[in-house]
C-alpha cells in the first residue's frame, strides 16, 4: 500500500471513528457530573475501612487487589519478554564502542552530565523510597516509587557507563529482587488464605491514625513489594536495551 493510499484509508476510517466517538460522547454524563455510584461509595467508606487516606491506593491494593496482582505480573512478563527477544543470538558478540573507532577512544561522557546525574542520584532514591512507602498517605504508591527508584540506576548509567550500571545492578541479583517483589505480593494474598480468609484480605493491624505510616495494614506492605518489583523490572528492561549498544551482529556492515 502506498503512503497516499494508506492516508486515504485512514481518513475514511477516521471519519467512522469520529462518528462513533460523538455517538458515545452523547451517552456520557457531562464533564464534572460523575454519576457514581462506585467512586462515591468508596470515597465515603474507604478511610474508615482501611485507615488509608490515599483512596486510590486503597482501591489499587485492597478493593481490587486481585487485579493489581495481574497488573504487576504484566510488568513481570514484559521484563521476561524483553530479555527473551533481546537474548544473545548465534553469531552475536559483545563489542565496546571503542572497537568501532580504531584510531581514537569513544568520546567520554561530558563532565556536566556526570555531575548533574551524580547530584540527582541521592535525592532520586529518597523520593522513590518515599513514594513507595507512603501509598496509604498521599498520592504515591509502589508503581510510581518503583519507576523513580529505577531512574536512580539510569542516572548512575549516565554518570558512569554501562559497565558501572551492570556492576551496581547485576542481572542475577536484579532478577532475584524482581521475583521477591512479585512473589511477596502474591504471598501476602496467600497468607490471608492460610488464616481462613479470602485471598488478599487485609490481615495486618490497620493502626489507629488514618494515613499514618504504620496504618492501613497490607496496603502499605503490598505497595512496598510492588515498588521493589517495578524498580527491578525497569532496571532489567533498561539494562537489556542498553546492552544492545554493545551487541554488533557479526558480519553486518
Amino acid at each position, binding site marked *: *500500500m502506498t*503512503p497516499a493510499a*494508506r*492516508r486515504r484509508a*485512514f481518513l475514511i476510517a*477516521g471519519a467512522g*471513528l*469520529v462518528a462513533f*466517538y460523538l455517538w458515545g*460522547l452523547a451517552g*456520557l454524563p*457531562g*464533564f*464534572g*457530573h*460523575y454519576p*457514581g455510584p*462506585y*467512586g*462515591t461509595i*468508596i*470515597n*465515603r467508606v474507604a*478511610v*474508615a475501612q482501611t485507615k488509608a*487516606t*490515599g*483512596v*486510590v491506593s*486503597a*482501591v*489499587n491494593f485492597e478493593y481490587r487487589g486481585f*487485579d*493489581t496482582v495481574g*497488573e504487576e505480573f*504484566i*510488568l513481570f*512478563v*514484559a*521484563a521476561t*519478554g*524483553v530479555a527473551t*527477544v*533481546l537474548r544473545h543470538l548465534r553469531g552475536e558478540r559483545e563489542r565496546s564502542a571503542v572497537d568501532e573507532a580504531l584510531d581514537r577512544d569513544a568520546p567520554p561522557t561530558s563532565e556536566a552530565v556526570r555531575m548533574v546525574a551524580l547530584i540527582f542520584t541521592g535525592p532520586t532514591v529518597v523520593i522513590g523510597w518515599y513514594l513507595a512507602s507512603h501509598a496509604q*498517605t*498521599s*498520592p504515591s*504508591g509502589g*508503581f510510581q516509587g518503583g*519507576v523513580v527508584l529505577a531512574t536512580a540506576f539510569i542516572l548512575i548509567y549516565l554518570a558512569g557507563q554501562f559497565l558501572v550500571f551492570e556492576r551496581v545492578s547485576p542481572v542475577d541479583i536484579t532478577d532475584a529482587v524482581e521475583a521477591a517483589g512479585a512473589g511477596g505480593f502474591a504471598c501476602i494474598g496467600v497468607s490471608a488464605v492460610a488464616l481462613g480468609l479470602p485471598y488478599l484480605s487485609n490481615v495486618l493491624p490497620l493502626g489507629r491514625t*488514618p*494515613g499514618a505510616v504504620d496504618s492501613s495494614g497490607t496496603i502499605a506492605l503490598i505497595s512496598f513489594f510492588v515498588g521493589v518489583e517495578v524498580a527491578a523490572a*525497569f532496571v532489567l*528492561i533498561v539494562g*537489556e*536495551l542498553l546492552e*544492545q549498544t554493545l551487541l554488533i*551482529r557479526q558480519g*553486518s*556492515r
Partner: protein
Amino acid sequence: MHIVPFAAVAWILGAGLYGVVTSRHLIHQIVCLIVVQSSTYVLLLGVGYVTGAVAPYFYDVPAHTPAVDPVVQALALTDVVVEAAVTALLLAFAIQAHKRFGTLDPQELAELRG
C-alpha cells in the same frame, strides 16, 4: 456541558493515530502509539471528574469532602503500566527488526516481507 476535555481526548487520539499511520520510522511510530494511549488517561480522568471536588486523598481534608472518582484514577494507573510493558516489548522488537533487516522504515519493512 463542558466539551473541552473530550475534545482534547479526540485531538490527542487523532494526532497519535495520524502519526502511527504516516510514520516512516518504527521508534517514531512507537512514540505515536504512546500518544494514542495518553488520550485514554484524559478520557478516564475526565469521566471521573466532579465539579468542585478535591482529589480522593483525605489526609488534610475532612472525610466526606466531595472527591473525584478514585476508581478511574486507579484504572489510569493500570493503563500506564500496560503502556510501559507494551512500549518495552515494541522497542525490543524494533531493535531486532533493525538488526535483521537494517532498516526501521515500516514501508521498507513491509516490502521486505512481501
